[in-house]
């Protein structure tokens, strides 16, 4: 208990040399470690940070993640170094049964901690806001009424239709053709209009740094501008049923000229199919698709009664 504590160690009431020595040591170790770690993160890891440099959103996200890593590394190092120092220096020696100094708190330390963490948080917030607004929404889905749009001319419209368990893409500027291939031109703003026909999916174009949830009856808009040629990976990022894990694919960024020729030839090739599709719209209600509607009505399935969600084909949990 408290009895012999009067004789235990240096009096804690008066801050003296021993305490300052510990503080200085910890600070110096932390300074050196951060000075090593942060440049390593920025120069060595930075160029390889995900999601890469394939599009404007990807570049800004890579910068964003690298900056966050550079800011958090000293915080993590600070706590670990302090803990490590404490465990080495301030261990209870064998046979020592006495208590430590009765330090209940230190108003200055606490106030400094609160102020510094507040400043850091506001700084991270301001940085995040800039990184969100400037790259036109940072590739994230903004809903049907986006407020951060890219400048520089009308973007290419690509509608992403998600259904269990495949993504298809409609290009309204090319006759509303629907294709399972995603091809984008380099250097032009792209507007993804993401919607779903059944359950909630999420369109994640990894190397493009675009993620936008696909909700039934909702048009979720995301922007990006592909900068580099190549192939990117498309995944579904929201659990949508049995084959969610297989709902993946590839997309391609090609030169503007190649894109034009691909679009024209696909439009021509798919013209007979496009005629049978419902007209291009921001969202689709599968229960009222005119061509399908007759079939559904003849089966006795109409809007009310929950008929759209059964029978269970394919059977899934």
């Amino acid at each position, binding site marked *: *208990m*408290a009895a012999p*504590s009067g004789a235990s160690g240096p009096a*804690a009431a008066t801050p003296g040399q021993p*305490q300052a020595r*510990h503080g200085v040591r910890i600070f110096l170790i932390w300074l050196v470690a951060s000075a090593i770690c942060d440049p390593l993160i920025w120069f060595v890891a930075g160029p390889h*940070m*995900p999601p890469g440099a394939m599009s404007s*959103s990807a570049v800004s996200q890579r910068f964003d*993640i690298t900056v966050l890593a550079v800011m*958090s590394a000293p915080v993590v190092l600070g*706590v*670990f170094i302090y*803990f490590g120092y404490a*465990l080495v220096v*301030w261990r209870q020696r064998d046979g020592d049964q*006495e*208590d*430590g*100094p*009765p*330090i209940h708190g*230190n108003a200055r*330390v*606490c106030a400094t901690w609160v102020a510094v963490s507040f400043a850091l*948080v506001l700084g991270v*917030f301001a940085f*995040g*806001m800039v990184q*969100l607004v400037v790259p036109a929404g*940072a*590739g*994230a*889905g*903004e809903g049907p*009424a986006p*407020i951060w749009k890219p400048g520089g001319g009308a973007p290419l419209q690509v509608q992403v239709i998600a259904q269990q368990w495949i993504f298809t893409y409609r290009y309204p500027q090319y006759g509303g053709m629907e294709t399972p291939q995603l091809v984008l031109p380099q250097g032009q703003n792209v507007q993804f209009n*993401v919607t779903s026909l*059944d*359950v*909630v999916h999420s369109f*994640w174009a990894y190397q493009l*740094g*675009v*993620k*936008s*949830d696909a*909700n039934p009856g909702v048009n*979720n808009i995301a922007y990006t501008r592909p900068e580099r040629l190549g192939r990117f*990976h498309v995944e579904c990022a929201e*659990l*949508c049923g*049995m084959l969610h894990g297989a709902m993946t694919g590839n997309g391609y960024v090609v030169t503007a000229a190649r894109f034009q020729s691909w679009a024209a030839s696909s439009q021509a090739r798919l013209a007979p199919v496009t005629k049978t599709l419902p007209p291009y719209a921001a969202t689709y209600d*599968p229960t*009222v698709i005119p061509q399908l509607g007759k079939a559904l009505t003849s089966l006795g399935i109409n809007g009310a009664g*929950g008929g759209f969600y*059964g029978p*269970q084909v394919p059977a*899934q*949990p």
Partner: protein
Amino acid sequence: MAIGTEPATAQRPGGNEPAGLRRARPWWMRPAVHTALIGAVAGYLFGHWLGNFLASGYQQVKHADINDTPIVLGYVFGTVGWLAGLGVFNDLLRQMAGRPAAGRDRAADGGLARYFRYSLDHKVVGIQYLIGMIVYFLTGGLFALAIRVELLSPAYHVLSPSAYLMVVGEHGTMMMMMMSSVIVGPFGNYFVPLMIGAKRVAFPRVEALSFWLTPAAFIILLSGVLFGGFPTGWTGYATLSVQAGLGMDSYAVAFGLMGLSIILAGCNIIVTVISYRAPGMRWSRLPVFVWSMVATSFLMVVAAPVLVGGMYMILTDRTAQTAFFTGTLGGSSYLYENLFWFFGHPDVYILALPGFGIVAEIIPVFCRKPLFGYRVAAACMIGVTLLSFLVWQHHLFDSGINPDMRPLFMLTTELISIPTGFIYLVAMGTFWQAKIRLTVPMLFALGMYINFLIGGISGIFLSDIPADTTEHGSFFVMAHFHYTIMGGLIFAFMGGIYYWLPKMTGIKLNETLGKIHFYTMFVFFNSTFLPLFAIGLMGQPRRVFEYQRQLQTLNDWVSVSAFLLAGSILIFVINFVWSTVIARHPEARDPWRSRGLEWQVPSPPPAENFARIPQVLSAPYEYGVPGAPPVADLDPGCRAGRAAPGRLMRQGHKRFLGAPDEERR
């Protein structure tokens, strides 16, 4: 002082109703788990029949050829039967009939049998919860191992896609659902009265009910496996949850029951702490663990009703043909997302705050110093509680919510890191010039701090909307919450077990096995979950059974580590069973030399906790303070010659009892 020193009624565990003279019936005639099972089966059969009777004619049922209503009503009535079989309603029905309630446990209830009954002693409920939570944790862990086996290969090889999804959903739901009470249940219920100097909790029947709902929820959730499971994961997103097969009903009912359980547990703790504190137990002397229990309880009471509402809406969408979540019929899938996450985010603080409380309770004892910044620690709990209701849309950044809502939630999410960071200020201040003893509880507390730091910093990455575009829905999120929940909460839970089991049972856990457990668990936990950050950033989404080929090496490393982690938890189970059942080495009353009030009573505590309500004299963290009074006077009013117990003495206490190193007699 908030309350007088003479309580208006005598405080006895289980209530003051006259027990009367009752002949003890044989064990198999008294309500316990066996009668509960009979009640559950009878209730299920009745509910199933009722569901068929009500809903067979529905259009939805006829088209889909599946009827959810009998399953749902079967579960609901089965739970009612389970509770009735336990005797939960007996006192209520007696009082409605105008007869006195039977109330308290009889002294004849000794030994193991009372742990299988509806016991009104908070200590029995605490131990019931402890065993229950360990069982639920191990069950969820087995499902996790199945997930990792499947993820050894980039294509599906062991489990079919639907079986894999079933396993994923069962693992996540088992953990999130059952672990909401992992500390409040065992340690909150057991120690809050002891720590505040009370002989009982405010609502013992409510507390026991909150426990007995958990096995019902556990069995209902597991029974989903019989239906092929549910395809939505633990989040249960509409519209998939409306579309799903019968297993979805087990999820919704089980989660609803757990929601009910945590509301009840929270109510009980709040009222107990407000009303049952011993004289002298001011709010400024309350142990930090009790602060965390109160804060967690507020979260439970305010957030869980929203969950129950959401689950109820899923069930009516699936049975009664409502359209809350179906866009084409006037509802919205966003309604579910917002209802769920309005609960879901406070839920993760329900999981995190008790962990903070335990480690803040443990470190002063093993640093032999007062807790640094007690007010800061309390502010942490309060700040996190208040802010946690303002951040839920950070789960929905990419979902198409109104874009101008997102900066607000980015700000609030980043702001909540400030009170969360206070626990590090408190820890670092407590370590300053301390005398650190690396006992097993202290090791787990350190492990919690280290893991939670990594988890918390990754939370900053997730709160930043541009970075979240890549990280949302990927394994980065998985790594983040496993670090905070398993690395934080479960390490704190283990620390709490090693710290408090000597108090609860009077038996010590083997220290060598404990240290092996800690070091293996810490190493393998980090080797399992640290690579997941990289895997997520490299583009693997959550809940998938296939992934890109180049990620196989990392996934295999994680899977092997996961099995080694399971091995370390097996060491814990072996230690636990060996020490409590086989070796049973008795432990001193206060092996850690702690000043906590709960350590001043014998181990295990007597039925009434304290012979007299103690007079609390100081905070429990006054280590190293010269001339500090002991934490409480356990025999107030009896040493200066006054006859009446509990009277406040005017001339001060000359002889102190209850000092930590004295055997209390």
